[in-house]
């Protein structure tokens, strides 16, 4: 027996010490579970962001094929009247094809020719038509024009299609690869920022599809949502918090609002379909109806946030205002609401951010239609960003995968902007009483 054991009376390897060690190990283990849970959640978030960025970033640039296009007058404008409607409807595809044939004179078979033409996007006629419409003096001249490559060619140039794979498994065949290699050595293939994505509406062709239409649609929808839910929400919150007597009615309203906040969003879509579309006969696919549905959905959020902001204003403010003779309404409108405004606005922005990301109820009211035109008002057919993402995610073309993820990045960008605004508001104007 050593001195130490004698002095403490406990053996180092006695049952008590072992037990204590076991308990400390359990302590550490338990703590590790917590860290592991948080790490797992963070890891999933990181995985999500990485997978989106990794698939999406290639959609931000795009390949074009530069061709010397001869704008032949007899094709574009045989009568020579330079009538815009004639210019718009001319067969521009023929011009692009002619210049392709000039580059590859030894392509003779019909099937091969079709493949050759397929290198270019189907939108080539639109692209050339826009050029001519902007500058009719082009007619009769030869210009070097960068024409969008088709989605398969674009995918190939971005390295998504493996050259070494057996030909039958490839969307781009050997002949096409040979042509593209020749174009590449000629320096005719250029890659550039995908401006179309930010300026155009949807298209069936991935290389032509843009996100701008959905962005405008989201803007109009949110505008309607904000115009309806913000005033109504603030008024309701002010009433319930400042004026309402405590009775059964206000209790019912309160319970009601809390329950509405938890109703699945898709049920609001059913309401929109049954009431706004079928009963009131409002137009399908319109941002007006979408905004109304989302307004009903965000209303509880705004009311709850506004109420807690109003509750945070100390009673001394109210008493001081009453003391100098203000009426009930003056107390609220001159003092309480202005002081609570940062909190109310923060709640409203968070509600709007949620509405911006909402998809399901909008599917119910027909905002899933395929819409090329940029909506010009709240009653034009439109789609919104998350629905556009859903639509693209459903498309079979390989090149839409990248566009879908690019759309997600744009949407997340807007959400981050809105949330940052809410945080700044809260940080700058938050008052501690």
């Amino acid at each position, binding site marked *: 027996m050593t001195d130490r054991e004698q002095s403490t009376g406990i053996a180092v390897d006695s049952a008590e010490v072992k037990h204590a060690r076991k308990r400390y190990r*359990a*302590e550490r283990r*338990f703590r590790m*579970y*917590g*860290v*592991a*849970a*948080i790490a*797992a*959640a*963070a890891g999933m*978030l990181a995985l*999500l962001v990485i*997978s*989106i960025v990794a698939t999406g970033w290639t959609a931000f640039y795009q390949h074009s094929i530069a061709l010397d296009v001869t704008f032949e007058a007899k094709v574009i404008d045989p009568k020579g009247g330079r009538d815009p409607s004639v210019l718009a409807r001319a067969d521009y595809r023929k011009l692009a094809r002619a210049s392709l044939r000039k580059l590859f004179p030894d392509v003779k078979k019909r099937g091969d020719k079709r493949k050759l033409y397929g290198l270019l996007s189907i939108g080539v006629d639109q692209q050339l038509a826009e050029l001519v419409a902007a500058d009719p003096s082009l007619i009769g001249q030869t210009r070097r024009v960068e024409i969008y490559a088709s989605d398969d060619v674009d995918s190939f140039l971005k390295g998504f299609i493996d050259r070494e794979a057996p030909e039958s498994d490839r969307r781009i065949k050997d002949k096409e690869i040979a042509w593209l290699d020749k174009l590449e050595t000629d320096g005719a293939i250029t890659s550039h920022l995908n401006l179309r994505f930010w300026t155009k509406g949807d298209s069936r062709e991935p290389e032509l599809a843009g996100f701008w239409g959905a962005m405008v649609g989201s803007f109009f929808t949110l505008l309607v949502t904000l115009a309806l839910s913000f*005033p109504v*929400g603030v*008024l*309701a919150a*002010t*009433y319930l918090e400042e*004026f309402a007597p405590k009775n059964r009615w206000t209790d019912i*309203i309160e319970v*009601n*609002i809390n*329950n*509405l906040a*938890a*109703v*699945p*969003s*898709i*049920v609001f879509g*059913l*309401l929109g379909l*049954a*009431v706004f579309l*079928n009963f*009131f*006969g409002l137009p399908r696919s319109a941002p007006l109806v979408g905004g109304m549905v989302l307004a009903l959905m965000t*209303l509880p959020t705004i*009311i709850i946030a506004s109420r807690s902001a109003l509750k945070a204003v100390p009673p001394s403010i109210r008493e001081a205002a009453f003391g100098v003779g203000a009426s*009930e*309404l003056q107390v609220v409108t001159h003092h309480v609401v202005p002081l609570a405004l940062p909190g109310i606005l923060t709640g409203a922005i968070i509600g709007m*951010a949620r509405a911006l*990301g*909402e*998809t*399901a109820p909008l*599917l*119910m009211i027909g905002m899933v239609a395929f819409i090329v035109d940029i909506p010009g*008002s709240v009653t034009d057919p439109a789609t919104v960003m*998350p629905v556009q*993402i859903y639509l693209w*995610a459903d498309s079979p073309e390989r090149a839409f*995968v990248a566009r*879908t*993820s690019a759309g997600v990045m744009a949407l997340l960008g807007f959400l981050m902007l809105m*949330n940052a605004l809410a945080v700044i508001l809260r940080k700058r104007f938050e008052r501690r009483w």
Partner: protein
Amino acid sequence: MQIWLILGVILLLAAYGYQRGKGGALAAVSGDASQLHSLPSYHGAYVALWAAIPALIACVIWLSAEHQIIEALVVSGLSAESQALEPQRLALLMSDIRNLSSGDIVRADPSLEVQAAAARYTELASISLYAKFAVIAALSAICLFFAKKRIAGQFRARNRVERIVRYIMIAASVIAILTTIGLVLSLLFEAWRFFLRVPFHDFLFGTHWSPQTAIRADQVGASGSFGAIPIFAGTLLITLIAMLIAVPLGLFSAIYMSEYASPRARGAIKPLLEVLAGVPTVVYGLFAALTVGPYVRGFGESFGIDASSESALAAGLVMGVMIIPFVSSLSDDVINAVPQTLRDGSYALGATQSETIRQVVLPAALPGIVGAVLLAVSRAIGETMIVVMAAGLAANLTANPFEAVTTVTVQIVTLLVGDQEFDSSKTLAAFALGLVLFFVTLALNIIALKVVRKYREKYD
């Protein structure tokens, strides 16, 4: 566009009324504002409110009734045989008439009758437009005039304005109730029409779901069958998987955040979890379909299990991740609400921190945690986009998480997206499912809130 014009007119009249009211009040006391009962601006506001509110109400009523009245008038002008058409064909005819009237693309060569009706439609619409303008402007002007007449030195304008504002506020609060009533009524009404065709019992307890109804009477598989059990089973399976992910992860995150983490670590972890809650569900859906689905399939195949890329497991996993923040933030709140004295008592008896948490804090917080889990379950049941994009459409009655299953929300979306006439059994079935969804989530929420509230009272 016309709506903006009308609103503009009303606003102009209200602004004019404000000026007139203010000026009138000052004129009534020959410029000496101290003689007035209320500030001049209240007199102005009184007149402006009277100029705007009745006109706005009239405008809303007009806009919501206009459509039906014009349609009814046009239908009554159609020939007897057109009027005798079935409702669906009549609706088709009406949409032709509308399109022709608005100058959109129509089916080739509309008949003379349709052309005449379209002309009538255009005419009625323009009459309604002018009448609307006239009535609303006149109403606004008349109300303005009478309100202006009441302005006098001792007129209690402030009290009047405050009363009107209070009514507006009450109306705003009632909208929440109206929304609920609208929700319940629209679901009940459409679901009732569904149950007239499909017996209630067959819907709730049937085991075969194939909502395709026949177009021709003699078609194979003529009438669809609406047994919702496979759908409910699929929903439960996915919810179960989601909860298996979300409850442990969320609960342990909450325990770590509230019991172990330093304030700085907490300040970093909390926003991280909030970001997880702020990601739109369509993004999670894409993640599930694009990344997790193929991975789950590969995982299943490596064990020799035949997995489809749309599987309950993929959807459930991602949904679980989405729900982590709900569980963690609600549990965090309840754990923080457990009084420190309980912990101190436990430490004093020699318990370690984890023993305190497991044996004192968690049992004390249990009702709140149960409430949080119930809220999370209700969230999972109502979640739509993840399952639409990743869970599949086949109504399989299976417990195998590698198989594709379908859920209530997926079926609602697939039944209603796309063009079909509104009162087929197919579309009505969506409302019956919506009704079930609404009541189940409502019940879960009410129970959860009750549990949480009861628990709060215990320590207050």
